[in-house]
C-alpha cells in the first residue's frame, strides 16, 4: 500500500490548484453563478486547456489516460472551491457511460468532443417516484422502425438544462423494478418531444426536470434491456467522485473554521484558546480523515472486478462520507456562530453542497439499510 500521490499526480494537483487559486475565489465564483448558464464558459474552456475534460479518457479518444485516482484528486480540488461547472455530469457520469457501454464509433464521436469542451452530457435517469431505487424506471421506449421513441419524465437531472446530449434510461421490456428491460439511450437534448425545465439547486448548481413525449432517440447505448449494470457503473463512478469532492469541501470548512477560531475574540481571547472549541475542532479533523479514508475506499473499489464486493464498499463509503460531511458542515456553521448562517459567508455554501451530495444516488440511511440486509 502506498497512499502518497506519484510525481505525475502531484503535478496534476499543483496545476489544478494553481488554476483554481487564480480563478475560483468565492467572489469570482459568485460572478460565474450569476451568468445566464449558472456557470462560467470561460472556466470550462480553461478546464479543456488543462486537459481536465478528457482526464479519464483513453488517449486514443483524445483523453489523458487518467484513472480513478486522478479523478479523485481533481474532484477533491473542485470540492475545496465548490466548482459549479458541469464537470460531474459530463466527464464523470457521461464519460463513464460512454467508456463503459459505447461502441467504438460512439466513443470516437463523443469522448474527443467532451475533451475539447464542445459537448456536454447529462445523465437523465432519476424519476420522481423512484427516490433512490435505480430499478424504478417507468419511462418507456418503443421500437419504431430502426429507432426508438421515448415517453416519460426525469427529475433533478444535474445540468440537464445545458447538456447537448442526454443519456436517458427507459424501459424496453418488463415492469417497474425489474432488473432486466432497462435500456440506455443517447438523446439529442434539442430534439422534438424533449422539454426541459431548468432550475437552480440548493448548492447553486443547476438541474432540470425533463419530459419526453414521443421523443426520438439518437442511438442505443449498450445492449437493449441490459442497461442496469451500466447505470450501476455510472452511479459508482459518481459516488467515488462526489466522495472526493466532499473531502475537499470538508478540508475547506475545517481550514476556515480553524482560521476563524484564531481571529474571533470573545471573553478577551480568541475562541480557539477554549478547550471546548478545540475539542470540537479536533473532532471535525478526525471526522474529515475518517471520511477521506472512505473516499479512498470508493476510489479503490471502482477497480474491483467483483460486483458484489464493489457495491458493498460503495455503500460503506456512501454512509461514511455522507455522515462525515454532515457532521463537519453542521459543526463548521456552529463554530462560526451567526456569521456561519449568512449567505455572504462561504461556510454555508459548503454546507449546502455537502447536503446535496449526501442525497445524490442515495443517502446514508438508504445505504445503511442495504448494509444491514447483508449482516449474517
Amino acid at each position: 500500500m502506498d497512499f502518497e500521490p506519484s510525481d505525475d499526480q502531484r503535478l496534476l494537483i499543483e496545476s489544478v490548484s494553481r488554476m483554481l487559486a487564480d480563478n475560483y475565489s468565492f467572489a469570482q465564483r459568485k460572478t460565474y453563478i450569476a451568468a445566464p448558464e449558472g456557470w462560467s464558459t470561460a472556466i470550462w474552456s480553461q478546464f479543456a486547456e488543462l486537459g481536465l475534460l478528457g482526464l479519464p479518457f483513453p488517449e486514443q479518444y483524445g483523453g489523458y489516460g487518467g484513472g480513478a485516482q486522478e479523478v479523485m484528486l481533481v474532484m477533491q480540488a473542485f470540492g475545496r472551491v465548490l466548482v459549479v461547472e458541469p464537470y460531474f455530469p459530463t466527464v464523470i457520469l457521461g464519460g463513464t457511460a460512454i467508456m463503459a457501454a459505447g461502441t467504438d464509433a460512439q466513443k470516437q464521436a463523443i469522448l474527443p468532443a467532451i475533451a475539447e469542451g464542445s459537448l456536454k452530457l447529462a445523465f437523465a435517469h432519476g424519476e420522481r417516484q423512484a427516490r433512490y431505487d435505480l430499478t424504478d424506471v417507468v419511462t418507456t421506449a418503443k421500437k419504431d422502425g430502426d429507432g426508438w421513441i421515448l415517453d416519460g419524465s426525469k427529475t433533478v437531472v444535474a445540468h440537464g438544462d445545458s447538456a447537448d446530449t442526454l443519456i436517458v434510461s427507459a424501459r424496453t421490456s418488463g415492469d417497474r423494478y425489474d432488473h432486466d428491460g432497462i435500456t440506455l439511450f443517447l438523446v439529442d437534448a434539442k430534439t422534438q418531444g424533449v422539454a426541459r425545465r431548468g432550475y437552480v439547486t440548493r448548492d447553486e448548481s443547476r438541474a432540470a426536470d425533463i419530459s419526453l413525449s414521443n421523443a426520438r432517440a439518437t442511438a442505443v447505448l449498450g445492449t437493449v434491456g441490459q442497461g442496469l449494470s451500466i447505470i450501476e457503473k455510472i452511479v459508482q463512478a459518481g459516488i467515488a467522485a462526489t466522495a472526493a469532492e466532499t473531502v475537499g469541501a470538508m478540508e475547506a470548512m475545517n481550514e476556515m473554521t480553524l482560521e476563524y477560531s484564531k481571529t474571533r475574540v470573545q471573553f478577551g481571547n480568541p475562541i480557539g484558546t477554549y478547550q471546548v472549541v478545540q475539542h470540537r475542532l479536533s473532532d471535525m479533523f478526525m471526522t474529515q480523515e475518517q471520511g477521506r479514508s472512505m473516499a479512498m475506499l470508493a476510489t479503490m473499489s471502482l477497480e474491483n472486478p467483483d460486483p458484489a464486493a464493489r457495491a458493498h464498499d460503495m455503500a460503506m463509503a456512501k454512509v461514511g462520507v455522507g455522515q462525515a460531511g454532515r457532521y463537519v458542515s453542521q459543526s463548521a456553521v456552529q463554530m462560526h456562530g451567526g456569521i456561519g448562517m449568512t449567505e455572504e459567508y462561504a461556510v454555508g455554501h459548503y454546507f449546502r453542497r455537502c447536503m446535496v451530495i449526501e442525497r445524490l444516488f442515495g443517502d446514508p440511511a438508504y445505504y445503511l439499510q442495504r448494509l444491514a440486509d447483508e449482516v449474517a
Partner: protein
Amino acid sequence: MDLRFSKEDEAFRLEVRTFINENLPADIRERSRLGYAFRKEDTVAWQRILNKQGWAAYSWPVEYGGPGWTPTQRMIFQEEIMMGNAPEVLGFNITMIGPVLMHFATQEQKDYFLPRARNLDDWWCQGFSEPGAGSDLASLKTAAVRDGDDYVVNGQKIWTSTAHNADWCFVLVRTNPEARKRQEGISFLLVDMKTPGITVRPIISIDGSHHLNEVFFDDVRVPVENLVHQENKGWDVAKFLLGNERTGIARLGKSKERVNASIEMAHKVNANGRPLIDDAVFRQRVAQLQVDMKALEITQYRVVSAYDKAGGGRPDPLSSVLKVKGTELLQATTELAVDVAGPMATPIWARELAALNEPDDLLEASSASVGSYLFLRAASIYGGTNEIQKNILTKAVLGL
C-alpha cells in the same frame, strides 16, 4: 498511490493465520472466544511459542531478535492475533520497554533485558501514573534520592496494570524537585519488583477482575546502573515511549472479533419471537459499526504506510485519531455484545453457578462479554485519555 495490499502482504497474512491456527493451544482460544480476558499463564505460554518462531518481538529489528517486519506486516500480525483469539504479546515488554532500551540503554542493559523481555522471562509493568498525576503526568511526586551507588525511592504509583504479575517495573521518578520546569527533574528507572520496600495492593476494577494495582515504594534501593538514559532526562524517555508506534493502539482486530461474536450470538438468542439477527435495529447497528471499523481500518493503513515510507521516525499525529476512534469502537463493540446478551448479561459466571448448572456456553459467553465491556471503559482513559488525545491533536495538527 497504490491503495491495495501487495501480494506479499496477503501471503504474509495467510502465513500468520495458519501459524496461529496450528499452534495456539485450544483452551486458550476457547476462553477468548467466550469473551474472557487471558490469564497470565496464557500470555506467557503463547509469547514463548511466538518467540520460538522468532515473532514475539514482532516490532523489533533483526539485530535485537525481532523479525524485522515492515509496519504493514506488524499491523497484519496484530490484527490476525486479535481476530484469531490469541493473546497479544505483552505490550509492556515488546512495544514499551523494548524500544526504550534499544534507543536509550547501555550495552549491558540491552544484553541482559532484551532477550528476557522477548521470551517473557521478565514480565514488565509501567510505573507512571500517581494519585495526583494522571493526565498531568509531569506533576508526579515519587522521589528518588541518590545515596552511594543506589537511588532511594519513596512514593506511590497507581493504576499499575499487572503489577502483581510483574518481575520488573519501569518507573518515572523525580530526581530534581528544584528543576526550572517540572519535566526537567524526572528520571527513568528499572526496578526489580522483588526489591524490599515495594508493596503491591490490588485494585479490583468494575468488571470484578484484578488487573490494576497500587504500588508503594518505601525506601526502595535501586542500583544506579538501573537508570536509563541520563539523570533528569526521563521525560524524554517517557515521551519516546508514549509516542512510539501507536498504530496498534486502535486494536481494531479486537473490535472486529467482538462484532463477529455478537453476530454469532444474535443467531442464538430471540427478540420478539424471532432470532435477534433478524431484528432491523440490531442489523443497522452492526452495519454502522462495520462502516466505522472500515473507515478506521483504512486510516490505520494510511498511518502505517506513512511509517513504511518514512522508515519509522516521528509518530504521525494521525495516531491520535487511531487512539480516539479505535477505543470508541472497542467500547461500542463490547457494548453491542452486552446488549445482545440481554438479561443473560446479569449473572456473574462464577464457580457456584458452574457447579449448579449444566455447562451453558451461551450464558457463559454472555456473562464473559460483560467483563470486557466493563473493563474496556478504561480504553478511553489509559494511554492518555481521549480528551488528552484531542489536546494533542489541537496542538500538533491544528497548531492552536
